[in-house]
């Protein structure tokens, strides 16, 4: 329940909890006490990080994720061009070896605007809901969404430019995304048009990959430029309602990233690489209240933090399954 509530709060844009020391479990109190006594000196920590930077696993999850994202999007293209009928359609709705799949947010928009649901759409929506419930919700964002890959490239460029002072990172209030979510629901309901789809870079990029590039990619380019020069990962962080939809699914998903406070050095590298750093606030010194904490559902399960953590304090877990194995 705690996980669900925390997840919903963060999806709404509320600040993560800041528990005081009194809320720490006795076990965690002992851990922090221990950490206070044996402070790691910076040189030693740098060594640990250096050593980790050269391990084979340094980019394990990122590589797997990129491979998956590219493969999935390529399957759409290959299916169309060679007529092999593996994944027909686009990211908004498709048929995967004949089975209906519908993107949850696109389906939601259609249902609200059309106010009538055909059976195939119900089947597609339920199938995809179960799929992402099993796989972690916003896993969709980082493992499948084609815009995510472009945005990651823009982010790398942004960081490079920001280091030289050529780009800024203006933060917005995260609550604005929840406001967008409500607005787009209302707009679909009231106007009877799927208003969000007009500006959805996920749909636009997916269709561009499959059916050819058109003028709509200009809008996507503008968004990317905004992210490069004005605000890091602005679309995914502050706007995208698809992320919220899948975040809601993720809030009841058993696949999560888990944080173990014991081995953590609290140096904050994980928060620096994270798309949604507020979910990792628990890694700040003295924040954890339990030995292990599941990272809330706004997390896209991209694994960048798992990759960069030199002490394996962050790892993927599958609730229920790990106990069974």
């Amino acid at each position: 329940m705690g996980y669900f509530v925390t997840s919903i709060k963060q999806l709404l844009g509320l600040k993560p909890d800041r528990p005081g020391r009194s809320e720490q479990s006795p076990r965690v109190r002992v851990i922090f006490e221990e950490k206070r006594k044996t402070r790691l000196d910076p040189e030693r920590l740098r060594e640990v990080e250096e050593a980790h930077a050269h391990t084979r696993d340094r980019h394990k999850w990122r590589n797997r994720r990129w491979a998956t994202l590219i493969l999935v999007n390529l399957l759409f293209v290959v299916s169309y061009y060679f007529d092999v009928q593996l994944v027909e359609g686009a990211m908004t709705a498709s048929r995967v070896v004949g089975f209906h799949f519908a993107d949850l947010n696109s389906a939601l928009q259609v249902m609200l605007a059309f106010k009538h649901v055909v059976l195939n759409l119900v089947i597609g929506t339920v199938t995809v809901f179960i799929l992402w419930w099993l796989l972690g919700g916003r896993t969709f964002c980082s493992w499948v969404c084609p815009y995510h890959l472009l945005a990651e490239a823009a982010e790398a460029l942004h960081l490079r430019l920001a280091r030289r002072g050529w780009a800024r990172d203006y933060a917005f209030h995260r609550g604005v995304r929840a406001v967008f979510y409500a607005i787009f629901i209302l707009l679909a309901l009231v106007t009877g048009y799927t208003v969000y789809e007009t500006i959805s870079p996920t749909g636009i990029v997916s269709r561009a990959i499959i059916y050819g590039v058109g003028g709509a990619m200009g809008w996507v380019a503008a968004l990317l430029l905004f992210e490069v020069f004005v605000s890091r990962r602005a679309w995914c962080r502050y706007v995208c309602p698809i992320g919220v939809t899948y975040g809601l699914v993720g809030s009841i998903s058993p696949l999560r990233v888990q944080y173990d406070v014991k081995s953590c050095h609290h140096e904050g590298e994980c928060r620096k690489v994270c798309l949604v750093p507020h979910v990792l606030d628990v890694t700040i010194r003295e924040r954890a209240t339990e030995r292990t904490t599941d990272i809330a559902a706004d997390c896209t399960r991209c694994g960048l933090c798992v990759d960069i953590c030199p002490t394996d304090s962050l790892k993927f877990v599958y609730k229920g399954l790990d106990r069974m194995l």
Partner: protein
Amino acid sequence: MRSRRCGNRWGNERRSVTHRQKRSNAVMNEETKQTKKARKLSPKRREQNRREFLRSAALATGMVGASLAGLLPLAGGANARLRPPGALKDPLNEQQLFAACIKCGQCVQVCPVEAIKLAELGDGVGIGVPYIDARQQACDFSCDGLQCVLACPTGALTHELNYPADSRMGFARLSRPGACLAVKGEGFQGPARGPDYHGLLRYDEVDRWNPIPVSEYPYDLELCDLCMRQCPIEIRISQCEAGKPPSGDSNQCPPKRAISLQPLEGGVPGAKVPVVEEGCVGCGVCEMICPVTPAAIVIDIDKVAGS
């Protein structure tokens, strides 16, 4: 305090300006939290909050404005187009179609003549909705089974449609009678749209299952009757009259004629005029095949048979 020290200690040169700034925000936040009882934000912090709020409001306005701009092309029906068979719409009101369509393009993928395209950003909320440019490539129903309708996952192309003759995409109109070769009493030789035209049509006598380029099928006609000759409805009618309905299914037989050539009184001897009949579904093959440029016969999308 500890985390603040930590932040400064590991705050190395790799961190960008913005990061340092953010960090200092976080530190300040922490400090204010520690004196939380007082519940007073520093003027600087309050100013930052104010700016963040204004920025967020601007972002919200911009994004919602951009998406609402998608409604603009609706005014004056700028995005009304010829749609695939079964598209949910009253002739010019496409709201149902736009609402129901999930913009996935599965209809595009199954069309054997690749007649269906997806609208671009200029169509606003109609982005990603399928349409047909008949002059470039019309729907000739060569799939027989209305594959696009079957492929549609949301019913935007309604499944209530079973046969080509049931569709109501638009209605043909002889827009330039003066240019029509039949009206002028002229014949036609060669490929209908020239050797460089890429459009496809199914010619049953060439290949029952695969459409071929129109450029590979030269005609030799004493009087041009291409619009009627290639009309998918007319072709089905003659097949049915010959006792060979498509797929052996007599339900495929259209109940009404779509186009006929009527003698033209007062014209050149032998001249005839194409007359669009009640059975026209507006598929656009006549517009596509018409050898004069621009086409003498076009599809009106604001009208359908029976309306």
